[in-house]
Protein backbone atom coordinates (compact mmCIF):
# COMPACT_ATOMS: atom_id res chain seq x y z
CA UNK A 1 0.00 0.00 0.00
CA UNK A 2 2.65 2.49 -1.10
CA UNK A 3 0.12 5.22 -1.78
CA UNK A 4 -0.98 5.46 1.86
CA UNK A 5 2.51 5.52 3.32
CA UNK A 6 2.89 8.41 5.71
CA UNK A 7 -0.81 9.25 5.45
CA UNK A 8 -2.50 9.95 8.77
CA UNK A 9 -6.19 9.69 9.57
CA UNK A 10 -8.68 11.35 11.93
CA UNK A 11 -11.70 9.82 13.63
CA UNK A 12 -13.83 12.01 11.38
CA UNK A 13 -12.34 10.26 8.33
CA UNK A 14 -10.11 13.03 7.03
CA UNK A 15 -6.59 12.18 5.86
CA UNK A 16 -3.49 14.35 6.25
CA UNK A 17 -0.12 13.98 4.55
CA UNK A 18 3.00 16.03 5.14
CA UNK A 19 5.00 17.07 2.10
CA UNK A 20 7.84 19.61 2.26
CA UNK A 21 6.65 21.03 5.55
CA UNK A 22 3.09 21.55 4.25
CA UNK A 23 0.10 19.39 5.12
CA UNK A 24 -2.26 18.15 2.41
CA UNK A 25 -5.73 17.20 3.63
CA UNK A 26 -8.63 15.31 2.12
CA UNK A 27 -11.27 12.68 2.91
CA UNK A 28 -10.67 8.94 3.18
CA UNK A 29 -11.95 6.24 0.86
CA UNK A 30 -14.24 5.08 3.69
CA UNK A 31 -15.66 8.61 3.90
CA UNK A 32 -16.32 9.00 0.17
CA UNK A 33 -17.94 5.58 0.12
CA UNK A 34 -20.18 6.39 3.06
CA UNK A 35 -21.14 9.77 1.61
CA UNK A 36 -22.02 8.39 -1.80
CA UNK A 37 -21.94 10.53 -4.94
CA UNK A 38 -20.42 13.87 -4.00
CA UNK A 39 -22.13 16.78 -5.73
CA UNK A 40 -20.55 19.86 -4.17
CA UNK A 41 -17.47 20.85 -2.22
CA UNK A 42 -17.37 24.16 -0.37
CA UNK A 43 -13.71 25.11 -0.30
CA UNK A 44 -12.08 27.30 2.34
CA UNK A 45 -10.54 30.65 1.39
CA UNK A 46 -6.78 30.67 0.99
CA UNK A 47 -5.24 32.65 3.84
CA UNK A 48 -7.81 31.44 6.37
CA UNK A 49 -6.33 30.67 9.78
CA UNK A 50 -7.59 27.43 11.32
CA UNK A 51 -7.23 25.53 14.56
CA UNK A 52 -7.09 21.75 14.64
CA UNK A 53 -10.69 20.52 14.76
CA UNK A 54 -12.16 23.61 13.03
CA UNK A 55 -14.54 22.98 10.16
CA UNK A 56 -12.79 24.18 7.01
CA UNK A 57 -14.90 22.73 4.22
CA UNK A 58 -18.29 21.17 3.54
CA UNK A 59 -18.69 18.13 1.32
CA UNK A 60 -22.18 17.60 0.01
CA UNK A 61 -23.45 14.33 -1.43
CA UNK A 62 -26.89 13.29 -2.61
CA UNK A 63 -27.42 11.83 0.86
CA UNK A 64 -26.02 14.41 3.23
CA UNK A 65 -23.72 17.38 3.84
CA UNK A 66 -20.68 16.86 6.05
CA UNK A 67 -18.26 19.28 7.67
CA UNK A 68 -14.60 18.57 7.03
CA UNK A 69 -12.38 19.35 10.01
CA UNK A 70 -8.79 20.45 9.78
CA UNK A 71 -6.51 17.86 11.39
CA UNK A 72 -3.89 20.54 12.16
CA UNK A 73 -3.67 24.21 13.14
CA UNK A 74 -2.22 26.66 10.65
CA UNK A 75 -3.04 28.69 7.58
CA UNK A 76 -4.78 27.52 4.42
CA UNK A 77 -2.28 28.26 1.67
CA UNK A 78 -3.84 26.45 -1.26
CA UNK A 79 -7.18 24.87 -2.19
CA UNK A 80 -7.98 22.32 -4.87
CA UNK A 81 -9.98 24.47 -7.29
CA UNK A 82 -10.65 21.50 -9.56
CA UNK A 83 -13.22 20.29 -7.02
CA UNK A 84 -15.40 23.29 -7.75
CA UNK A 85 -16.36 21.98 -11.18
CA UNK A 86 -15.60 18.31 -10.59
CA UNK A 87 -16.59 17.33 -7.04
CA UNK A 88 -16.74 13.69 -8.21
CA UNK A 89 -12.92 13.64 -8.12
CA UNK A 90 -13.25 12.93 -4.39
CA UNK A 91 -15.21 9.77 -5.21
CA UNK A 92 -12.89 8.70 -8.01
CA UNK A 93 -9.62 9.01 -6.15
CA UNK A 94 -9.92 10.40 -2.64
CA UNK A 95 -6.21 10.13 -1.84
CA UNK A 96 -4.96 11.74 -5.04
CA UNK A 97 -7.41 14.63 -4.78
CA UNK A 98 -6.75 16.78 -1.75
CA UNK A 99 -9.15 19.50 -0.55
CA UNK A 100 -6.69 22.02 0.86
CA UNK A 101 -3.07 22.55 1.82
CA UNK A 102 -2.24 23.91 5.27
CA UNK A 103 0.92 25.65 6.40
CA UNK A 104 1.00 24.05 9.85
CA UNK A 105 1.97 25.78 13.08
CA UNK A 106 3.10 22.58 14.66
CA UNK A 107 3.78 19.48 12.59
CA UNK A 108 3.78 17.29 15.69
CA UNK A 109 -0.05 17.56 15.72
CA UNK A 110 0.07 14.88 13.02
CA UNK A 111 1.54 12.42 15.53
CA UNK A 112 -1.77 12.35 17.40
CA UNK A 113 -3.58 10.95 14.35
CA UNK A 114 -4.00 7.30 13.34
CA UNK A 115 -1.78 5.54 10.81
CA UNK A 116 -3.28 3.39 8.10
CA UNK A 117 -3.35 0.19 10.18
CA UNK A 118 -4.97 1.90 13.18
CA UNK A 119 -7.45 3.60 10.87
CA UNK A 120 -8.46 0.32 9.22
CA UNK A 121 -9.18 -1.13 12.66
CA UNK A 122 -11.10 1.99 13.60
CA UNK A 123 -13.24 1.68 10.44
CA UNK A 124 -14.04 -1.98 11.01
CA UNK A 125 -15.26 -1.10 14.52
CA UNK A 126 -17.48 1.61 13.01
CA UNK A 127 -19.23 -0.94 10.77
Amino acid at each position, binding site marked *: MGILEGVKFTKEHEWAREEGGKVYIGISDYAQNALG*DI*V*YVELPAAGKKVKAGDAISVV*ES*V*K*TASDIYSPVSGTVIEVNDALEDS*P*ELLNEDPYENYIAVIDPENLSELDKLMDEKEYREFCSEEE
Partner: protein
Amino acid sequence: MAKLIFEMSRPGRTAYSLPPCDTATDLRDRKTAGQTGSDGKGAQEDVACSLIPERFRRKKDAELPEVSEVDVIRHFTELSRMNHGVDNGFYPLGSCTMKYNPKVNEDIAALEGFRAVHPYQADETAQGCIQILYEMDRMLKEITGMDRFSLQPAAGAHGELAGLMIIKAYHDYRGDTGRTKIIVPDSAHGTNPASAAMAGFEAIEVKSDERGGVDLKALKAAVGPDTAGLMLTNPNTLGLFDENIKEIARIVHDAGGLLYYDGANANAIMGICRPGDMGFDVVHLNLHKTFSTPHGGGGPGSGPVGVKKALEPFLPTPLAEFDGKQYRLDHDRPLSIGRVRSFYGNFGVILRAYAYIRTMGPDGLRKVSENAVLNANYLMHRLKDHFDLPYDRTCMHEFVLSYGKHKETGIRTLDIAKRLLDFGFHPPTVYFPLIVNEALMIEPTETESLETMDLFADTLISIAEEAEKDPEKVKSAPHRTYVSRLDEVKAARNPVLVHMD
Protein backbone atom coordinates in the same frame (compact mmCIF):
# COMPACT_ATOMS: atom_id res chain seq x y z
CA MET B 1 -45.30 12.00 -18.52
CA ALA B 2 -47.65 14.91 -18.36
CA LYS B 3 -46.82 17.87 -20.57
CA LEU B 4 -46.18 21.25 -19.07
CA ILE B 5 -49.04 23.67 -19.54
CA PHE B 6 -46.66 25.81 -21.61
CA GLU B 7 -46.19 22.92 -24.05
CA MET B 8 -49.96 22.64 -24.46
CA SER B 9 -50.22 26.31 -25.38
CA ARG B 10 -51.59 27.23 -28.87
CA PRO B 11 -51.59 30.83 -30.10
CA GLY B 12 -54.98 32.46 -29.75
CA ARG B 13 -56.60 29.68 -27.72
CA THR B 14 -58.43 31.06 -24.68
CA ALA B 15 -60.48 29.86 -21.76
CA TYR B 16 -62.84 32.82 -21.96
CA SER B 17 -65.04 34.61 -24.44
CA LEU B 18 -65.69 38.29 -23.86
CA PRO B 19 -67.26 41.02 -26.00
CA PRO B 20 -65.07 44.04 -26.80
CA CYS B 21 -64.87 46.52 -23.98
CA ASP B 22 -67.51 49.21 -24.55
CA THR B 23 -66.41 51.70 -21.96
CA ALA B 24 -63.20 53.64 -21.84
CA THR B 25 -60.67 52.34 -19.33
CA ASP B 26 -59.53 55.91 -18.94
CA LEU B 27 -62.37 58.16 -17.93
CA ARG B 28 -60.54 61.23 -19.23
CA ASP B 29 -61.03 59.95 -22.77
CA ARG B 30 -64.60 58.68 -23.24
CA LYS B 31 -64.38 59.18 -27.00
CA THR B 32 -62.15 56.14 -27.56
CA ALA B 33 -64.59 53.68 -25.98
CA GLY B 34 -65.44 50.74 -28.23
CA GLN B 35 -63.19 51.90 -31.04
CA THR B 36 -60.46 49.86 -32.61
CA GLY B 37 -56.99 51.27 -33.02
CA SER B 38 -54.97 51.21 -36.24
CA ASP B 39 -52.98 48.16 -35.05
CA GLY B 40 -56.17 46.16 -34.55
CA LYS B 41 -56.01 46.37 -30.76
CA GLY B 42 -58.69 48.16 -28.81
CA ALA B 43 -58.02 51.86 -28.47
CA GLN B 44 -58.78 51.58 -24.76
CA GLU B 45 -55.77 49.32 -24.49
CA ASP B 46 -53.61 52.15 -25.79
CA VAL B 47 -55.20 54.47 -23.28
CA ALA B 48 -54.46 52.06 -20.47
CA CYS B 49 -50.91 51.75 -21.72
CA SER B 50 -50.44 55.49 -21.83
CA LEU B 51 -51.00 55.64 -18.08
CA ILE B 52 -47.85 53.59 -17.51
CA PRO B 53 -44.52 55.37 -18.09
CA GLU B 54 -42.74 54.13 -21.21
CA ARG B 55 -39.79 52.60 -19.33
CA PHE B 56 -42.03 50.28 -17.33
CA ARG B 57 -43.91 48.90 -20.35
CA ARG B 58 -43.19 45.44 -21.72
CA LYS B 59 -41.46 45.32 -25.10
CA LYS B 60 -42.74 41.79 -25.75
CA ASP B 61 -45.98 40.14 -24.71
CA ALA B 62 -45.72 37.97 -21.58
CA GLU B 63 -45.28 34.30 -22.47
CA LEU B 64 -48.38 32.99 -20.79
CA PRO B 65 -49.90 29.65 -21.75
CA GLU B 66 -52.85 29.95 -24.15
CA VAL B 67 -55.15 27.04 -23.39
CA SER B 68 -58.84 26.21 -23.23
CA GLU B 69 -60.75 25.77 -19.98
CA VAL B 70 -61.00 22.01 -20.33
CA ASP B 71 -57.23 21.81 -20.97
CA VAL B 72 -56.57 23.69 -17.75
CA ILE B 73 -58.93 21.47 -15.74
CA ARG B 74 -57.54 18.22 -17.18
CA HIS B 75 -53.96 19.34 -16.75
CA PHE B 76 -54.22 20.20 -13.08
CA THR B 77 -56.50 17.26 -12.29
CA GLU B 78 -53.91 14.93 -13.77
CA LEU B 79 -51.12 16.56 -11.77
CA SER B 80 -53.14 16.22 -8.58
CA ARG B 81 -53.60 12.50 -9.28
CA MET B 82 -49.85 12.04 -9.60
CA ASN B 83 -49.40 13.53 -6.17
CA HIS B 84 -49.52 11.73 -2.84
CA GLY B 85 -51.06 13.49 0.12
CA VAL B 86 -52.52 12.45 3.43
CA ASP B 87 -55.97 12.61 1.80
CA ASN B 88 -55.10 9.69 -0.45
CA GLY B 89 -52.88 7.51 1.68
CA PHE B 90 -50.75 6.77 4.72
CA TYR B 91 -47.90 9.24 5.11
CA PRO B 92 -45.64 8.12 8.00
CA LEU B 93 -42.94 10.73 7.39
CA GLY B 94 -40.99 10.86 10.64
CA SER B 95 -40.54 14.27 12.26
CA CYS B 96 -43.15 15.80 9.96
CA THR B 97 -46.41 14.79 11.68
CA MET B 98 -48.45 14.22 8.54
CA LYS B 99 -51.73 13.83 10.38
CA TYR B 100 -55.11 14.13 8.71
CA ASN B 101 -56.25 17.75 8.52
CA PRO B 102 -59.95 17.94 9.44
CA LYS B 103 -62.04 19.67 6.78
CA VAL B 104 -63.90 21.73 9.37
CA ASN B 105 -60.68 23.79 9.63
CA GLU B 106 -61.20 24.76 5.98
CA ASP B 107 -64.82 25.74 6.59
CA ILE B 108 -63.75 28.10 9.37
CA ALA B 109 -60.93 29.62 7.31
CA ALA B 110 -63.39 30.20 4.44
CA LEU B 111 -65.84 32.28 6.52
CA GLU B 112 -66.28 35.60 4.78
CA GLY B 113 -65.29 37.71 7.78
CA PHE B 114 -61.86 36.07 7.71
CA ARG B 115 -61.53 35.54 3.98
CA ALA B 116 -62.37 39.08 2.93
CA VAL B 117 -60.48 40.97 5.63
CA HIS B 118 -57.58 43.20 4.61
CA PRO B 119 -54.40 43.49 6.68
CA TYR B 120 -54.44 47.29 6.37
CA GLN B 121 -57.88 47.57 8.00
CA ALA B 122 -58.07 49.58 11.21
CA ASP B 123 -58.00 47.53 14.41
CA GLU B 124 -61.57 48.43 15.33
CA THR B 125 -62.86 46.99 12.04
CA ALA B 126 -60.95 43.70 12.40
CA GLN B 127 -61.82 42.82 16.00
CA GLY B 128 -62.61 39.15 15.25
CA CYS B 129 -59.24 38.56 13.61
CA ILE B 130 -57.27 40.23 16.40
CA GLN B 131 -59.33 38.22 18.89
CA ILE B 132 -58.20 35.02 17.14
CA LEU B 133 -54.55 36.13 17.46
CA TYR B 134 -55.04 37.06 21.12
CA GLU B 135 -56.78 33.81 22.04
CA MET B 136 -54.34 31.69 20.05
CA ASP B 137 -51.49 33.23 22.05
CA ARG B 138 -53.28 32.29 25.29
CA MET B 139 -54.02 28.74 24.19
CA LEU B 140 -50.46 28.08 23.03
CA LYS B 141 -49.19 29.49 26.36
CA GLU B 142 -51.35 27.01 28.23
CA ILE B 143 -50.28 24.08 26.04
CA THR B 144 -46.55 24.83 26.37
CA GLY B 145 -46.25 26.50 29.79
CA MET B 146 -44.74 29.66 28.35
CA ASP B 147 -45.71 33.29 29.13
CA ARG B 148 -46.22 34.91 25.73
CA PHE B 149 -46.26 33.98 22.02
CA SER B 150 -45.67 35.77 18.76
CA LEU B 151 -47.56 34.14 15.89
CA GLN B 152 -45.51 35.83 13.18
CA PRO B 153 -42.89 33.25 12.08
CA ALA B 154 -43.95 31.60 8.83
CA ALA B 155 -42.71 28.07 9.63
CA GLY B 156 -40.58 26.03 12.03
CA ALA B 157 -37.09 27.10 10.98
CA HIS B 158 -38.31 30.70 10.86
CA GLY B 159 -39.52 30.28 14.45
CA GLU B 160 -36.06 28.96 15.36
CA LEU B 161 -34.40 32.00 13.83
CA ALA B 162 -36.78 34.37 15.62
CA GLY B 163 -36.21 32.50 18.91
CA LEU B 164 -32.43 32.69 18.57
CA MET B 165 -32.62 36.39 17.71
CA ILE B 166 -34.61 36.85 20.93
CA ILE B 167 -31.92 34.96 22.89
CA LYS B 168 -29.28 37.18 21.35
CA ALA B 169 -31.26 40.36 22.09
CA TYR B 170 -31.69 39.22 25.71
CA HIS B 171 -27.97 38.63 26.29
CA ASP B 172 -27.03 41.87 24.48
CA TYR B 173 -29.55 43.91 26.49
CA ARG B 174 -27.93 42.70 29.69
CA GLY B 175 -24.49 43.62 28.35
CA ASP B 176 -23.57 39.93 28.34
CA THR B 177 -21.99 40.07 24.90
CA GLY B 178 -19.51 37.20 25.08
CA ARG B 179 -22.14 34.51 24.53
CA THR B 180 -21.47 33.41 20.97
CA LYS B 181 -22.18 29.68 21.02
CA ILE B 182 -25.31 27.58 20.69
CA ILE B 183 -25.06 23.95 21.76
CA VAL B 184 -26.89 21.43 19.58
CA PRO B 185 -27.06 17.64 20.13
CA ASP B 186 -25.86 15.39 17.30
CA SER B 187 -29.40 14.02 16.94
CA ALA B 188 -30.89 17.48 16.32
CA HIS B 189 -32.88 18.55 13.30
CA GLY B 190 -30.54 19.98 10.67
CA THR B 191 -32.38 23.27 10.92
CA ASN B 192 -31.05 23.84 14.47
CA PRO B 193 -27.37 24.40 13.63
CA ALA B 194 -28.44 26.19 10.44
CA SER B 195 -30.67 28.61 12.36
CA ALA B 196 -27.91 29.17 14.92
CA ALA B 197 -25.50 30.11 12.12
CA MET B 198 -28.12 32.37 10.50
CA ALA B 199 -28.58 34.18 13.81
CA GLY B 200 -24.82 34.78 14.01
CA PHE B 201 -23.96 32.10 16.57
CA GLU B 202 -21.45 29.31 16.34
CA ALA B 203 -23.09 25.87 16.65
CA ILE B 204 -21.34 23.41 18.97
CA GLU B 205 -22.31 19.75 18.73
CA VAL B 206 -22.68 17.46 21.76
CA LYS B 207 -22.88 13.69 21.43
CA SER B 208 -25.77 11.48 22.48
CA ASP B 209 -25.34 8.86 25.18
CA GLU B 210 -26.03 5.14 24.68
CA ARG B 211 -29.70 5.62 25.62
CA GLY B 212 -30.13 8.21 22.88
CA GLY B 213 -30.30 11.24 25.20
CA VAL B 214 -27.92 14.18 25.62
CA ASP B 215 -24.60 12.98 27.09
CA LEU B 216 -24.47 14.94 30.36
CA LYS B 217 -20.70 14.70 30.67
CA ALA B 218 -20.23 16.07 27.15
CA LEU B 219 -22.75 18.81 27.90
CA LYS B 220 -20.94 19.84 31.10
CA ALA B 221 -17.70 20.03 29.14
CA ALA B 222 -19.32 22.12 26.40
CA VAL B 223 -21.01 24.84 28.48
CA GLY B 224 -19.20 27.96 29.66
CA PRO B 225 -19.26 31.76 29.70
CA ASP B 226 -19.55 31.73 25.90
CA THR B 227 -22.74 29.61 25.94
CA ALA B 228 -25.73 31.56 24.62
CA GLY B 229 -28.06 28.58 24.78
CA LEU B 230 -28.93 24.99 23.99
CA MET B 231 -31.38 23.87 21.31
CA LEU B 232 -33.21 20.65 22.02
CA THR B 233 -36.15 18.62 20.81
CA ASN B 234 -37.84 16.55 23.48
CA PRO B 235 -38.83 13.91 22.56
CA ASN B 236 -35.75 13.94 20.39
CA THR B 237 -35.36 12.85 16.79
CA LEU B 238 -35.00 9.22 17.88
CA GLY B 239 -38.54 9.53 19.25
CA LEU B 240 -37.18 9.18 22.78
CA PHE B 241 -37.99 11.34 25.78
CA ASP B 242 -34.85 12.71 27.40
CA GLU B 243 -35.31 11.74 31.05
CA ASN B 244 -32.48 14.04 32.13
CA ILE B 245 -34.20 17.16 30.90
CA LYS B 246 -34.30 18.84 34.34
CA GLU B 247 -30.59 18.21 34.83
CA ILE B 248 -29.84 19.44 31.30
CA ALA B 249 -31.78 22.64 32.03
CA ARG B 250 -29.86 23.13 35.28
CA ILE B 251 -26.46 22.69 33.59
CA VAL B 252 -27.29 25.21 30.85
CA HIS B 253 -28.90 27.75 33.20
CA ASP B 254 -26.02 27.51 35.68
CA ALA B 255 -23.66 28.43 32.85
CA GLY B 256 -25.82 31.47 32.07
CA GLY B 257 -27.31 30.05 28.87
CA LEU B 258 -30.94 29.76 27.80
CA LEU B 259 -32.88 26.68 26.65
CA TYR B 260 -34.57 26.56 23.27
CA TYR B 261 -37.29 23.96 22.59
CA ASP B 262 -37.72 22.84 18.99
CA GLY B 263 -41.43 22.03 18.91
CA ALA B 264 -41.29 19.76 15.88
CA ASN B 265 -42.12 16.79 18.09
CA ALA B 266 -44.82 18.43 20.21
CA ASN B 267 -47.41 15.94 18.97
CA ALA B 268 -46.11 13.54 21.62
CA ILE B 269 -46.62 15.68 24.69
CA MET B 270 -49.80 17.77 24.52
CA GLY B 271 -51.70 17.76 27.77
CA ILE B 272 -49.07 15.48 29.32
CA CYS B 273 -46.02 17.67 29.89
CA ARG B 274 -44.93 21.16 28.94
CA PRO B 275 -41.61 22.60 27.74
CA GLY B 276 -42.11 25.55 30.10
CA ASP B 277 -42.19 23.17 33.08
CA MET B 278 -39.13 21.28 31.81
CA GLY B 279 -37.11 24.50 32.05
CA PHE B 280 -37.21 25.81 28.49
CA ASP B 281 -37.05 29.59 27.99
CA VAL B 282 -37.99 29.77 24.30
CA VAL B 283 -40.25 27.44 22.31
CA HIS B 284 -41.46 27.26 18.78
CA LEU B 285 -44.40 25.16 17.63
CA ASN B 286 -45.19 23.99 14.14
CA LEU B 287 -48.90 24.68 13.78
CA HIS B 288 -48.83 22.90 10.42
CA LYS B 289 -47.61 19.69 12.06
CA THR B 290 -49.08 19.43 15.53
CA PHE B 291 -52.23 21.44 14.91
CA SER B 292 -53.36 19.91 11.64
CA THR B 293 -52.94 22.40 8.84
CA PRO B 294 -52.00 21.23 5.35
CA HIS B 295 -48.28 21.15 4.68
CA GLY B 296 -45.79 19.33 2.55
CA GLY B 297 -44.97 20.84 -0.81
CA GLY B 298 -44.37 24.20 0.73
CA GLY B 299 -47.14 24.77 3.22
CA PRO B 300 -47.54 27.58 4.02
CA GLY B 301 -46.64 26.73 7.58
CA SER B 302 -46.73 28.66 10.81
CA GLY B 303 -44.08 28.58 13.53
CA PRO B 304 -45.17 30.68 16.52
CA VAL B 305 -42.42 31.44 19.02
CA GLY B 306 -43.17 31.54 22.74
CA VAL B 307 -41.03 32.82 25.62
CA LYS B 308 -40.81 33.09 29.39
CA LYS B 309 -41.55 36.43 31.06
CA ALA B 310 -37.97 37.77 31.03
CA LEU B 311 -37.79 37.46 27.24
CA GLU B 312 -41.24 38.90 26.47
CA PRO B 313 -40.01 42.46 25.63
CA PHE B 314 -37.91 41.04 22.79
CA LEU B 315 -40.73 39.21 20.95
CA PRO B 316 -41.49 40.33 17.38
CA THR B 317 -43.85 43.28 17.08
CA PRO B 318 -46.84 43.80 17.05
CA LEU B 319 -48.65 41.67 19.67
CA ALA B 320 -52.41 41.37 20.10
CA GLU B 321 -53.74 42.96 23.30
CA PHE B 322 -57.19 43.15 24.96
CA ASP B 323 -58.26 45.81 27.47
CA GLY B 324 -61.52 44.08 28.44
CA LYS B 325 -63.48 45.86 25.72
CA GLN B 326 -61.39 46.21 22.60
CA TYR B 327 -58.75 44.13 20.88
CA ARG B 328 -55.80 46.00 19.41
CA LEU B 329 -52.35 45.42 17.94
CA ASP B 330 -49.59 46.86 20.12
CA HIS B 331 -46.74 48.26 18.05
CA ASP B 332 -45.13 50.19 20.92
CA ARG B 333 -42.54 47.63 21.96
CA PRO B 334 -39.13 49.35 22.02
CA LEU B 335 -37.00 46.28 22.88
CA SER B 336 -38.62 44.04 20.26
CA ILE B 337 -36.42 42.33 17.66
CA GLY B 338 -38.87 43.91 15.18
CA ARG B 339 -41.00 42.27 12.55
CA VAL B 340 -39.95 38.87 11.23
CA ARG B 341 -42.81 38.59 8.74
CA SER B 342 -45.08 41.01 6.93
CA PHE B 343 -48.37 41.71 8.68
CA TYR B 344 -49.35 39.11 11.31
CA GLY B 345 -47.88 35.82 10.09
CA ASN B 346 -49.73 33.26 7.98
CA PHE B 347 -53.11 34.18 9.39
CA GLY B 348 -55.05 31.56 7.40
CA VAL B 349 -52.88 28.82 8.88
CA ILE B 350 -53.18 30.21 12.41
CA LEU B 351 -56.95 30.23 11.92
CA ARG B 352 -57.06 26.55 10.90
CA ALA B 353 -54.93 25.60 13.89
CA TYR B 354 -57.18 27.70 16.14
CA ALA B 355 -60.21 25.80 14.81
CA TYR B 356 -58.42 22.52 15.53
CA ILE B 357 -57.52 23.42 19.12
CA ARG B 358 -61.06 24.64 19.83
CA THR B 359 -62.50 21.47 18.28
CA MET B 360 -60.31 19.17 20.33
CA GLY B 361 -60.27 21.01 23.65
CA PRO B 362 -57.73 20.18 26.38
CA ASP B 363 -58.92 16.59 26.87
CA GLY B 364 -58.99 16.00 23.12
CA LEU B 365 -55.43 17.27 22.68
CA ARG B 366 -54.22 14.94 25.43
CA LYS B 367 -55.94 12.03 23.64
CA VAL B 368 -54.24 13.08 20.40
CA SER B 369 -50.82 12.72 22.01
CA GLU B 370 -51.72 9.50 23.81
CA ASN B 371 -52.91 7.91 20.57
CA ALA B 372 -49.93 9.22 18.60
CA VAL B 373 -47.61 7.55 21.13
CA LEU B 374 -49.68 4.36 21.26
CA ASN B 375 -49.73 4.06 17.46
CA ALA B 376 -45.97 4.54 17.21
CA ASN B 377 -45.29 1.92 19.87
CA TYR B 378 -47.68 -0.52 18.18
CA LEU B 379 -45.90 -0.15 14.83
CA MET B 380 -42.48 -0.34 16.49
CA HIS B 381 -43.37 -3.66 18.12
CA ARG B 382 -44.80 -5.06 14.88
CA LEU B 383 -41.58 -4.20 13.00
CA LYS B 384 -38.78 -4.64 15.55
CA ASP B 385 -38.19 -8.34 14.77
CA HIS B 386 -37.81 -7.62 11.05
CA PHE B 387 -35.54 -4.57 11.21
CA ASP B 388 -32.85 -3.40 13.62
CA LEU B 389 -34.02 -1.19 16.44
CA PRO B 390 -30.90 0.62 17.66
CA TYR B 391 -32.57 2.19 20.71
CA ASP B 392 -34.98 -0.39 22.10
CA ARG B 393 -37.00 1.73 24.52
CA THR B 394 -40.63 2.79 24.77
CA CYS B 395 -40.85 5.38 22.05
CA MET B 396 -42.92 8.52 21.91
CA HIS B 397 -44.73 9.61 18.73
CA GLU B 398 -42.11 8.17 16.35
CA PHE B 399 -39.31 5.61 16.26
CA VAL B 400 -36.19 4.92 14.25
CA LEU B 401 -35.33 1.58 12.64
CA SER B 402 -32.11 0.68 10.87
CA TYR B 403 -31.66 -1.45 7.76
CA GLY B 404 -27.92 -1.50 8.10
CA LYS B 405 -26.48 -4.98 7.66
CA HIS B 406 -27.33 -6.13 4.17
CA LYS B 407 -24.00 -6.08 2.40
CA GLU B 408 -24.64 -9.44 0.69
CA THR B 409 -27.80 -8.30 -1.15
CA GLY B 410 -26.64 -4.72 -1.54
CA ILE B 411 -30.13 -3.54 -0.57
CA ARG B 412 -30.23 -0.29 1.33
CA THR B 413 -32.87 1.71 3.16
CA LEU B 414 -33.35 3.84 0.05
CA ASP B 415 -34.43 0.74 -1.92
CA ILE B 416 -36.93 -0.27 0.77
CA ALA B 417 -38.36 3.25 0.73
CA LYS B 418 -38.67 3.27 -3.08
CA ARG B 419 -40.42 -0.13 -3.03
CA LEU B 420 -43.03 1.18 -0.58
CA LEU B 421 -44.20 3.58 -3.30
CA ASP B 422 -45.43 0.61 -5.33
CA PHE B 423 -47.92 -0.18 -2.57
CA GLY B 424 -49.35 3.34 -2.31
CA PHE B 425 -47.54 4.38 0.86
CA HIS B 426 -45.48 7.49 1.30
CA PRO B 427 -42.13 6.22 2.61
CA PRO B 428 -40.92 7.17 6.08
CA THR B 429 -38.12 9.70 6.54
CA VAL B 430 -34.85 7.97 5.61
CA TYR B 431 -31.20 8.58 6.53
CA PHE B 432 -32.21 10.75 9.47
CA PRO B 433 -31.29 11.16 12.28
CA LEU B 434 -27.70 11.03 11.12
CA ILE B 435 -26.56 9.07 14.20
CA VAL B 436 -28.44 5.96 13.00
CA ASN B 437 -26.97 4.05 10.08
CA GLU B 438 -29.43 3.47 7.17
CA ALA B 439 -32.23 4.97 9.25
CA LEU B 440 -35.99 4.66 8.70
CA MET B 441 -37.87 7.16 10.85
CA ILE B 442 -41.55 6.29 11.19
CA GLU B 443 -44.28 8.54 12.58
CA PRO B 444 -47.77 7.11 12.08
CA THR B 445 -49.67 9.95 13.93
CA GLU B 446 -52.88 9.51 15.88
CA THR B 447 -55.26 9.69 12.94
CA GLU B 448 -54.49 6.26 11.47
CA SER B 449 -56.59 3.17 12.13
CA LEU B 450 -55.30 -0.19 13.31
CA GLU B 451 -56.08 -1.61 9.83
CA THR B 452 -53.98 1.01 8.05
CA MET B 453 -51.03 0.45 10.37
CA ASP B 454 -51.30 -3.33 10.02
CA LEU B 455 -51.37 -3.04 6.25
CA PHE B 456 -48.28 -0.83 6.36
CA ALA B 457 -46.45 -3.19 8.75
CA ASP B 458 -47.37 -6.25 6.63
CA THR B 459 -46.16 -4.46 3.50
CA LEU B 460 -42.87 -3.39 5.05
CA ILE B 461 -42.25 -6.91 6.37
CA SER B 462 -43.01 -8.44 2.97
CA ILE B 463 -40.60 -5.98 1.32
CA ALA B 464 -37.89 -7.00 3.80
CA GLU B 465 -38.50 -10.64 2.83
CA GLU B 466 -38.57 -9.79 -0.87
CA ALA B 467 -35.23 -7.98 -0.45
CA GLU B 468 -33.67 -11.32 0.51
CA LYS B 469 -35.39 -13.45 -2.16
CA ASP B 470 -35.61 -11.10 -5.12
CA PRO B 471 -33.26 -8.18 -4.43
CA GLU B 472 -33.33 -6.95 -8.05
CA LYS B 473 -37.04 -6.25 -7.82
CA VAL B 474 -36.46 -4.03 -4.79
CA LYS B 475 -33.35 -2.37 -6.22
CA SER B 476 -35.20 -1.34 -9.37
CA ALA B 477 -38.34 -0.14 -7.58
CA PRO B 478 -40.62 1.74 -7.89
CA HIS B 479 -42.37 -0.04 -10.76
CA ARG B 480 -45.85 1.45 -10.58
CA THR B 481 -45.19 5.18 -10.38
CA TYR B 482 -45.16 7.77 -13.17
CA VAL B 483 -41.39 7.94 -13.02
CA SER B 484 -39.00 5.47 -11.41
CA ARG B 485 -35.52 6.28 -10.09
CA LEU B 486 -34.43 9.78 -10.91
CA ASP B 487 -30.78 10.55 -11.51
CA GLU B 488 -30.28 12.63 -8.36
CA VAL B 489 -26.53 12.90 -8.88
CA LYS B 490 -26.88 14.34 -12.36
CA ALA B 491 -29.64 16.65 -11.16
CA ALA B 492 -27.40 17.97 -8.37
CA ARG B 493 -24.24 18.25 -10.46
CA ASN B 494 -25.80 19.64 -13.65
CA PRO B 495 -29.09 21.21 -12.72
CA VAL B 496 -31.20 22.30 -15.70
CA LEU B 497 -33.14 25.26 -14.44
CA VAL B 498 -34.94 26.31 -17.62
CA HIS B 499 -37.40 24.09 -19.43
CA MET B 500 -37.62 25.68 -22.87
CA ASP B 501 -35.03 27.85 -24.67
